[in-house]
């Protein structure tokens, strides 16, 4: 490399570095969202290691007892965490809970509703329908936060990325619950969230389009893998 090229390299290096200075970075997500996701990774690793040693024994027992289906559907639980193939729900010491959804797996809405209620989150989780109150209760943004954050209540996730939802059940107004509607559409699945009054709401099988009308959020993610793939 001659002197001219070295000089050109330093000018180019400066130009490349300067190209970063104009970038406006969005606000960083809450630390708790990151650490919850990290803990889920750690548990996944540990479950995997434990699973390797336990799998042989368990599979043998299942064959003898004919219980393979039962083993496949049972969620793994440890303190404060519920893990299924489709979601991980982590309960935190401060009373909040973080839900990470794996869009490649079909969501068992009844199981999710039960597990959310187990963590103190009054939820109405429906498949193929969506319930709402008109007008909607206030306080949605204090009860639920999302990562990645929806823009104007809407987010379309690239394939392979998993949305994280943090719930603060203490902030839920009395007499309300969280409506959580899941639609299998073509070519994506859609998940809608709003707060509803427990005593007054209506449900529709028509998926909301273009983002929620009031306080709420709408996620579009790729469809789950076909069964057995």
């Amino acid at each position, binding site marked *: 490399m001659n002197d001219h090229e070295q000089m050109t390299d330093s000018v180019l290096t400066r130009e490349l570095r300067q190209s970063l200075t104009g970038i406006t*970075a969005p606000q960083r997500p809450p630390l708790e969202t990151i650490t919850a996701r990290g803990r889920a990774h750690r548990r996944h690793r540990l479950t995997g290691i434990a699973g390797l040693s336990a799998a042989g024994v368990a599979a043998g027992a299942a064959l003898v007892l004919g219980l393979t289906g039962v083993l496949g559907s049972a969620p793994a639980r440890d303190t404060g965490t519920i893990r299924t193939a489709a979601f991980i729900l982590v309960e935190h010491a401060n009373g909040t809970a973080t839900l990470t959804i794996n869009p490649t797996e079909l969501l068992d809405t009844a199981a999710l509703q039960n597990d959310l209620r187990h963590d103190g989150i009054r939820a109405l989780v429906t498949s193929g329908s969506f319930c709402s109150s008109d007008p909607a209760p206030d306080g949605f943004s204090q009860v639920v936060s999302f990562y990645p954050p929806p823009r104007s209540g809407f987010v379309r996730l690239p394939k392979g990325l998993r949305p994280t939802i943090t719930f603060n059940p203490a902030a839920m107004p009395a007499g309300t619950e969280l409506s959580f509607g899941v639609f299998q559409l073509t070519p994506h699945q859609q998940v809608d969230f709003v707060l509803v009054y427990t005593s007054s709401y209506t449900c529709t099988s028509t998926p909301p389009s273009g983002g929620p009308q009031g306080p709420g959020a709408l996620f579009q993610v790729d469809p789950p893998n076909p069964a057995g793939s």
Partner: protein
Amino acid sequence: MGVSQDKSGFADFFADSWEPCLTVVAASTGSMALAEDQVAEAFARAWASWAKVSRHPAPRAWVVRTALNTGASWWRRRGRETPLANHDIAASHSQGNGLDAVVLTALRRLPARQRQVIVLRVFLDLDIGTTARQLGIAPGTVRAHQARAMTALRRELAAARATTEMER
């Protein structure tokens, strides 16, 4: 190291490093939204392995490389690890988040390994040895990738400027 001390160290690292890591990954991928998720995922993995990452010689490089690896599989699935078409260049102009479309296009046209070397050597200012260890390649290979990448970037940026001049 206790858990609270551990978390406080990670919290400081996260607060100091989120923006620098995000801007580097955004410049490499061309999408701020995608970079946000990739960097968040990389920080989550850093926390999951914090005992190891906190002793890493360049923890920010670990996060950036993990974020780019997370994204690489996404790009591969979409067949986008190939040179950009013109509509991508136009799209990057309209993002409004300060990404330099010309530099971005030139970077995205580099082969993945050359781009990784530029990210670590130029954007994160790592020395050759650390870059080589980070990428698991020989120092001489880092030099070769960097030289080829700089030549290609010089050529791309000069061509982009010439086109801009002609359009005026």
